[in-house]
């Protein structure tokens, strides 16, 4: 397989980004964008398609290499994906693949972005149990699977870093807590749910199709809405 990775490079936030096309050849049928980045980084004296030296390493983040940690989220051919789950063969045997950092977060260097805001938002939501709790098995399980990768936020028309609306990366983890709190402790979190999640969401579910963990978003939403939105609605009447 002979492909070209067209990578949006940037040394640091203070420098300007530029595109660099780097050829990559492999016999590995299952090679992914992550494989390509690893291999390119372990070479030296590499030149790009225009004969310029490639500044190594190409900065990117990874950890598990099996789509379980969310570290390697980036934009490949326009779509947010996990690099370790983006098999090259799906793009054709000799093609050019564009690779960019996630666009919703500040770039640190090359493909590394600072996704701290995702975690900050969970803090703002006050996402924890104040006291011991028993969770609903299925919902808690599904909710716990969120990788906090940010792919969903990338396609969300209503999310921007620092904004009021927290997106699916907030919707998913909140359901473990929300559906398990005793009635007396629910109020504050329900309010946060409505303000930071429910009210800002256009419900197009563009996010659902890109979630690399394949989280059953519908199921979680139905349950959380039942707790935080509809119950209140019914109670009022």
């Amino acid at each position, binding site marked *: 397989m002979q492909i070209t990775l067209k990578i949006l490079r940037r040394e640091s936030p203070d420098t300007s980004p530029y595109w660099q096309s780097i050829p990559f050849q492999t016999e*590995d049928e*299952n*090679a*992914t964008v*992550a*494989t390509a980045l*690893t291999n390119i*980084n*372990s070479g*030296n004296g590499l030149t790009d398609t225009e004969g310029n030296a490639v500044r190594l390493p190409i900065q990117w*983040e*990874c*950890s*598990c*290499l*099996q789509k*379980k*940690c*969310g*570290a390697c989220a980036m934009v490949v051919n326009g779509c947010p994906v996990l690099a*370790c789950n983006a*098999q090259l063969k799906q793009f054709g045997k000799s093609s050019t693949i564009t690779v960019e950092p996630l666009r919703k977060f500040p770039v*640190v260097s090359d493909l*590394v972005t*600072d996704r*701290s805001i995702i*975690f900050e938002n*969970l*803090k703002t939501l*006050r*996402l*924890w*149990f*104040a006291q*011991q*709790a*028993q*969770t*609903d*098995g*299925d919902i*808690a*399980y599904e*909710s*716990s*699977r*969120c*990788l*906090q990768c940010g792919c969903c936020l990338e396609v969300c028309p209503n999310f921007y870093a620092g904004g009021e609306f927290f997106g699916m990366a907030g919707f998913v*983890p909140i359901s*473990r*807590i929300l559906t*398990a709190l005793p009635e007396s402790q629910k109020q504050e979190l329900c309010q946060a749910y409505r303000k930071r999640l429910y009210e800002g969401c256009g419900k197009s579910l563009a996010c659902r199709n890109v979630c690399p963990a394949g989280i059953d978003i519908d199921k979680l939403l139905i349950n959380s809405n039942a707790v935080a939105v509809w119950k209140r609605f019914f109670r009022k009447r």
Partner: protein
Amino acid sequence: MQSVNIIGAGLAGLSTAITLAEQNVSCRLISLQPSERAQSVLAEGGINASLNTMGEEDTTEYHFQDTMKGGVYLADPNAVDALTKGAPQILQWLEGLGVPFHKKNGVIMLRNFGGQKKKRTAYAKSSTGKILMTALIDEARKFESAGLIRRFPHHEFLRLLMNEGICAGVRVRDRYTGQIWDFSGKVLLCSGGMNGIFPHMTTGTTQNSGDVTATVFSQGALLGNLEMLQYHPTTIGISGKRCLVTEAARGEGGRLYIMRDNQKWYFMEEKYPELGNLMPRDVVAREMYFVRRKYGGSVYLDMTGLSKETWEQKLSDLRDEIIQYLAIDPKTEPIPVKEGIHYFMGGIDTDEFHCTNIPNLYASGECTCQYHGANRLGGNSMLGALFGGRKSAQTILQDVQDVSSDFPTESLVRENEPYTEEASPILIESISQILLEGLGIVRNAEQLTQSLKKLKSLSQERSYNLREQNRLKLAEAMLLSALERRESRGAHYREDFPEKDESFRKVTIACRKEEQISITFRNLPERRSSCKSP
């Protein structure tokens, strides 16, 4: 009161941080990446505790005995005693944090795991690590918000700050800004296994580079049982790494076979009628190696006999994963499996209270040489990380008053720091190759000596930066430890010394002074009589 510096935010780091915070002691939780990216999220099959919910009359004493036997009596019996007695409480704690374990009528269900005669492993399908981590991360967030846990989620350990032989703090680098900081206070290492020493061959993450262990080794910390690498018997090759097929697959009824005279031979069941496919991992991996050497071809894992219910309720995620990576549906077709480097029983040497030989330096989790002896039982390492985290926090709490340090609490470093230069991927690969040749499933003096020679000539090839030098030294210590243990025990199998030798029932200790590495053996304590069950 001074803050405690925790390096690593996996299960061990989180467990320590939460325990300290529960007692109003603050800590810095420093990690290369956020907790969501730690290797702990990869853990699949489950966590052990003798909850005795399956009507099998399990007890903590049985858990103790299985753990000691599985580790071929190379673990500290007093530490294991505390671990196994503490396990049910750990599970209770986790349940209270809202971990959705697999339950029936509100009771936690347990599954079979290797090396254990009773069902003792609690689980959440085969994503147990991820599910536990989410609960702990949420719990830690509560204390972050209260200011008791301060996270440094993209900060790299560079080295310990030492003051006349005492650990006075830690130097770290912010990987996003490049800034270097000195943090004073006690240091607890929870930096995980040394998987990154074996890229491509490990089921874990290469982000656990082993650099922390290599660096503290160069600064005087003793390392124990470095020769004890666990090869997991059932892994599959995927691009760039080995992907684990959890032991739960066999726990739920999966069977290993090889083709012999055109027939499926279920060799484990024939050779070990009692535990069969669920013998401890060292035994299974070795048997697989031997049958392959004799009959050629692959060993297969046959899960076709598992019930529909098991696939749906207990292993659906595993099935999806295998279909994705191998394009084989394990429900209808056996899959070829091979060993991969999975766990490090050896590491930073500590006593049962998680103190290292350096005052004010502690360690817990997979980076330590604790609880598992010569072979770790599946399900015992998450337990070890969580229990060890709580235990080390208790130790720190006991002597937290006597903290003193000449370093300012937090200061930006402006001088040049040589430790920021990373090891070259080419060197990492070369070291890995040399180690794999010497530290295979079956070892002998000749191969080990050969590997040591190759390592020596590699060391002399060019000049290396500090991290590279430390890696080379750590690799040398691993080979020397394996060479000096002239017996076979657990994961360490020597063709030239195939028997267990009681005189070696001791911890292999590696000590580095400048360029010199010495290997000695430390005696294990006896189990205190107060620990024994009546």
